[in-house]
């Protein structure tokens, strides 16, 4: 039997094939199985690959938002402005203002009572009335402190909303107005440093440090406003500048305004008399006439100059305020502020060299200064012989006190002109400058300026131990077609201590009126010099400058003039 089966099997072909419908069904099933299986295999291998990728291969490329505590100080839209000691002058504060949608407030009376208890200065009945109105938006209170905001959140009245508002705040707004300026509602700088450094404040987070010292700023402002009151002046201004670096430590223009609250003041208050106003410097300009004569070598401190009688030039007559009717030497001409003597000096120098010198010391162009308020001087054009004469004693030319001060600083600091700046220099930073007069000329100008305070027109500016030196200037105000006898600008520009100047100090009063204490005089020696004395004294004490021994030989040596002066 077994062999029979074997025979049959041996006859069957090795491959068993099934034909017909059964075979077709089997084929289809097999194909489907293969397709489904490979699909699953593919899906699983994608998942596996992705798993390996995510867990093993992938670097933590995308920053996770929450990884460590974020302790960076929050950036405001606009950077702070600070003074040279880091005192905050301008900052942005985030304020939350509280509003309500009365339609969503369930119980207006209760809500008003709770809010009145939480926030100060809310009239409960008035608020209840507003909350029961039919509108969909009412202000409850603007500018809440964070504490108040938290308290309001805690009482949890429905229908209240907070509006985030960022506001520019000026903690020293009253005394830094002209320097710092202000912004508009969209926080674009409109004046002062806010305008000058608008891009910088918007783009970089760290505070902007100015060269201003808010303490000296306050001293100058207080003293100038006291002088304005005393002499009934319509305006005043003062400047304190480092003669070595050009840094402006204080810049005051009165009347002034509060950056926080500028709507209440007129446009006049925003006018910056130091940098934007141009005035005839008057006798304060004689410093440059003397310096140019000394620097060109056309005169020395003892050169005699004929001031016996007024000079006639065309229809003008140039005379002296206090005529001496004699031949004076250069030192005496400077000390007595003789117009005639200054013209004599200029005549020898000549028109072209005068203009060349004034241009060299930076008086014929607007100084390079960061603030947008920066005026170009008004100079004679064409520069005639008459112009040469009047310019020699500071008439027929108008310039900003800032320009005058920057150039005067170059006269006393050893002869280097440095552009004034409102930005703080780093201690030890080498400030680029340009030599405009020789060291020797500068030393002689110092002696002359000291002489004016020691024996000349500005005696009341003297502070024992601080060697104040300077030059007064009193100019009648220019009106259309001439000068006003009754309205003048009285000013003083000087520096201290004169043996090695540190600070330049400038002050002016606009239309001061003499009073009993000045015997009716309103000239700079009477109305400005005493304030200079107080300013120097307070600034010196503030900066801890010990007084010098004026009798010490090496100090005397630097201040004496070896010609007879009377």
């Amino acid at each position, binding site marked *: 039997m077994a062999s029979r089966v074997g025979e049959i099997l041996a006859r069957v072909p090795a491959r068993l094939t099934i034909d017909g419908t059964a075979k077709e069904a089997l084929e289809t099933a097999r194909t489907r199985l293969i397709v489904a299986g490979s699909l699953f295999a593919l899906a699983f291998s994608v998942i596996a690959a992705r798993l390996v990728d995510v867990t093993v291969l992938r670097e933590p490329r995308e920053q996770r938002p929450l990884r460590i505590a974020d302790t960076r100080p929050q950036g405001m839209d606009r950077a702070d402005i600070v003074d040279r000691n880091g005192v905050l*002058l301008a900052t942005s504060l985030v304020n939350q203002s509280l509003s309500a949608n009365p339609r969503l407030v369930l119980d207006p009376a209760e809500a008003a009572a709770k809010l009145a208890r939480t926030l100060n200065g809310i009239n409960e009945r008035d608020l209840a009335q507003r909350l029961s109105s039919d509108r969909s938006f009412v202000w409850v209170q603007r500018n809440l402190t964070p504490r108040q905001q938290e308290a309001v959140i805690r009482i949890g009245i429905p229908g209240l909303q907070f509006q985030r508002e960022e506001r520019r705040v000026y903690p020293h707004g009253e*005394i830094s107005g002209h320097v710092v300026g202000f912004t508009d509602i969209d926080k674009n700088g409109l004046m002062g440093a806010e305008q000058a450094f608008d891009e910088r404040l918007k783009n970089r987070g760290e505070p902007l440090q100015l060269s201003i010292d808010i*303490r000296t700023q306050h001293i100058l402002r207080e003293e100038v406003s*006291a002088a304005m009151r005393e002499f009934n002046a319509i305006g005043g201004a003062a400047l304190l500048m480092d003669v070595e670096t050009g840094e402006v430590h204080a810049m005051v223009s009165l009347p002034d305004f509060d950056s926080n609250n500028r709507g209440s003041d007129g446009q006049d208050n925003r006018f910056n008399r130091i940098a934007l106003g141009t005035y005839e410097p008057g006798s304060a300009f004689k410093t440059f006439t003397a310096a140019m004569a000394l620097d060109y070598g056309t005169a020395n401190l003892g050169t005699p100059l004929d001031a016996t009688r007024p000079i006639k030039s065309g229809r003008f007559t140039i005379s002296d305020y206090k005529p001496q009717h004699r031949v004076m030497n250069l030192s005496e001409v400077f000390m007595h502020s003789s117009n005639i003597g200054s013209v004599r000096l200029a005549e020898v120098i000549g028109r072209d060299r005068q203009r060349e010198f004034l241009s060299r010391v930076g008086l014929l162009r607007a100084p390079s200064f960061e603030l947008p308020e920066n005026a170009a001087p008004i100079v004679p054009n064409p520069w005639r012989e008459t112009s040469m004469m009047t310019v020699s004693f500071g008439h027929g030319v108008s310039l900003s006190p800032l320009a005058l001060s920057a150039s005067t600083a170059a006269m006393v600091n050893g002869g280097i002109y440095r552009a004034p700046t409102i930005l703080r220099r780093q201690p030890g930073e080498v400030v680029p400058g340009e030599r405009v007069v020789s060291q020797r000329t500068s030393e002689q100008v110092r002696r002359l300026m000291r002489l004016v305070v020691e024996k000349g027109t500005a005696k009341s500016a003297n502070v024992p131990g601080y060697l104040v030196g300077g030059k007064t200037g009193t100019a009648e105000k220019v009106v259309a077609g001439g000068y006003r006898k009754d309205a003048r600008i009285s000013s003083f520009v000087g520096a201290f201590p004169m043996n090695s100047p540190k600070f330049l100090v400038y002050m002016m009063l606009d239309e001061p009126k003499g009073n009993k204490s000045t015997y009716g005089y309103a000239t700079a020696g009477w109305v400005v010099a005493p304030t200079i004395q107080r300013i120097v004294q307070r600034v*010196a*004490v503030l900066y*801890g400058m*010990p007084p010098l021994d004026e009798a010490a030989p090496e*100090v005397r040596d630097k201040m004496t003039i070896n010609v007879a002066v009377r």
Partner: protein
Amino acid sequence: MIRPSVFAWVTLAGAVGVSLFQLKQSVRTMDEDLLRLNRQIAAEHQTIHLLRAQWSRSNQPQHLESLSRIALDIEPMKPGQMARLGDIPFRPAAPARAQDAQPAPSSIPAAGAPPPPPPAPPAPQPRARVQAGTHAGAPAIASVAEAGPGIARGGR
């Protein structure tokens, strides 16, 4: 009958599942903590910022000046109240000490000053303040009055 290997795998899978759940929970709690902390830090920054502005406001020189006029019995400092270290004469009755001071005179501008105080150096030293006891030879003279930030009271 369950084979031991199947049992082991099931147990392992269960353990991994439980610990993963726990890890996830703790990460979530920490995330919440972090979020809360960051909010708190932001709020503190806000407060600090506000306080700085208030501090600057409270330190207005004119404000301090009026306060000092009301509350303090201090006069504005005068230039004569300042001195240089070199202006202070050495105590004559301590020769041993004076000798001690001599080997290192470079640190003091005018060590071993003669009886009439030496003339002040020509260059002003704006920040020079007298400090008592900075070297062995200096007599213990109280330092000069500190000039407060702009509290020079009433300039006139």
